[in-house]
């Protein structure tokens, strides 16, 4: 079972991101479970959502205690004490930012981590460009697909087509593809330097 925890703020589509990811996994014939952290969501307040993906039925109904991956939609949340809580060593971390892990002050904390699992993507910029407003949630899923290989870009695009239509769908597909390509290129570049 692969477990993902998504951190963001009310209004950034945190819960929708977890739901879309679960729909994409379902589209691949797998079992998935997405759920919010059940807080009283308010615009701007920290929000957490979870997604589990497995090849068999998921019976577990506890919150995700030990995620395999973190998607952080808003880097201003990095200073929360518990944002990395329970994250498995060598788990994936994807942050929506234009800065590097060094610039975010995380280099020391993550120095023993597998660096190929730590990625950033300018998801807010990409969403502004392709969707016309700052909605980093869906583009980040493209970045997650590129870094983790847990989900296919094509499955995310199918999930977007099921949820949105017209211009919104087109914009989200362009943004998710751009984010996927950005992270994939980034990984390729890192590999060529290695």
């Amino acid at each position, binding site marked *: 079972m692969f477990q993902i925890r998504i951190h963001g703020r009310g209004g950034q589509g945190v819960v929708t991101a977890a739901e879309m990811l679960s*729909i994409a996994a379902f589209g691949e014939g797998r079992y998935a479970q997405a759920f919010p952290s059940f807080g009283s969501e308010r615009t701007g307040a920290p929000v957490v959502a979870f997604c589990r993906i497995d090849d068999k039925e*998921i019976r577990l109904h506890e919150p995700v*205690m030990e995620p395999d991956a973190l998607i952080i939609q808003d880097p201003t949340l990095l200073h929360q004490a518990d944002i990395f809580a329970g994250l498995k060593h060598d788990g994936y971390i994807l942050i929506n930012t234009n800065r590097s892990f060094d610039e975010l002050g995380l280099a020391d904390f993550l120095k023993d981590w597998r660096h190929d699992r730590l990625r950033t993507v300018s998801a807010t910029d990409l969403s502004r460009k392709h969707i016309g407003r700052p909605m980093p949630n869906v583009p980040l899923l493209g970045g997650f697909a590129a870094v983790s290989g847990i989900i296919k870009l094509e499955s995310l695009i199918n999930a977007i087509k099921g949820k949105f239509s017209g211009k919104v769908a087109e914009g989200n597909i362009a943004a998710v593809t751009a984010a996927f390509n950005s992270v994939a290129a980034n990984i390729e570049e890192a590999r060529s330097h290695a």
Partner: protein
Amino acid sequence: MLKQIEGSRAVAEAVALCRPEVICAYPISPQTHIVEGLGEMVKSGELKHCEFINVESEFAAMSVAIGASAAGARAYTATASQGLLFMAEAVYNASGLGLPIVMTVANRAVGAPINIWNDHSDALSQRDSGWIQLFAETNQDALDLHILAFKLAEELSLPIMVCMDGFILTHAFERIDMPSQEQVDAYLPPYAPRQVLDPQAPVSIGAMVGPEAFMEVRYLAHAKQMQALDLIPQLTTEFKTQFGRDSGGLTRTYCAEDADTLIVAMGSVLGTIKDVVDEMRTDGHKIGVLGITTFRPFPLAAVQAALRDAKRVVVLEKNLAIGLGGIVSTNVRMALAALSIGMYTVVAGLGGRAITKKSLHALFRKAEKDDIELLSFLDLDQNAVDKQLERERNTRRCGPIAENLLRDAGIVAARNY
């Protein structure tokens, strides 16, 4: 048809397939998405021949459902928590009058302190109201139980609460198999009331009954629930024939055959318990599970048959009968009356406290050694409790408990008294 949708949406679609004629809606978390979904389906014309009534309170919701049902309409509503308590008088009337209303209870804690999260206090407060109560373990279960509930309710002319864990199920996107309209139509015939307000054949529904017949009317309510103990397994078999799934039933066991220790629970926590049991079985522990699907009528014989060979029983329940212990345990105790089996009550998950595999592993391993109290509280912060008790001993005007505990936990900014 397989779908990946929210639990609330799955229930809304299943209820729509049952062709309800009147839906009374009043919003309360975590139930709201269900009636919102139904409202959209009525407005779009997807759900035809159905009147969607926005009412001014939960009391009105149940009162309108009573009127609709008495007039011969298939009636549905949904609520939770304080909403269920606010409609309580009408809840008793619906069952007392024998009207087959189906209601979803998206289980949530009851205040004060106000809390929107899940436990079973709301539905269990109405356990003796005369309603049949079914508890869903999964979202598939939740949608299937609604289809079964309409059939069962109308056959017996009794109302039914389908209980599903608030947020944990209602707000979870999971894979479900949605039946077709043809399948549901083949299983659930149009509503043929046993009593109806009809100007051509006038009757009173709700006549005053004095000491001469009140006992008998009440006894008949009990007798009808006893009939449900036979009817539920029968309708469950028919359900399997039509839909190919094991949904419903009185109780369900898991790894129970040779188990020394049996865990009894209701609702979504059963999934987490089963995962723990699988892991413990791998390590050689003889542990199993009894899930109670039908809580009213309480299936005494089925529970007794499932538990009779165990060495000990642990009832894990999401409610607290304050001043006594656990409501489910008290019922299970009746099933064990003639047997000398040790029984432990564990109160867990109140107000949305997460019930984790880690805590269950530790609990079950201790229980196997009979190393737990008869009544215990999973993951209770004893220090927080002791601190408040000490405050009450030392200070007369020690302030509101809820705020004190939040302040101790660092959630409310510190303030000096």
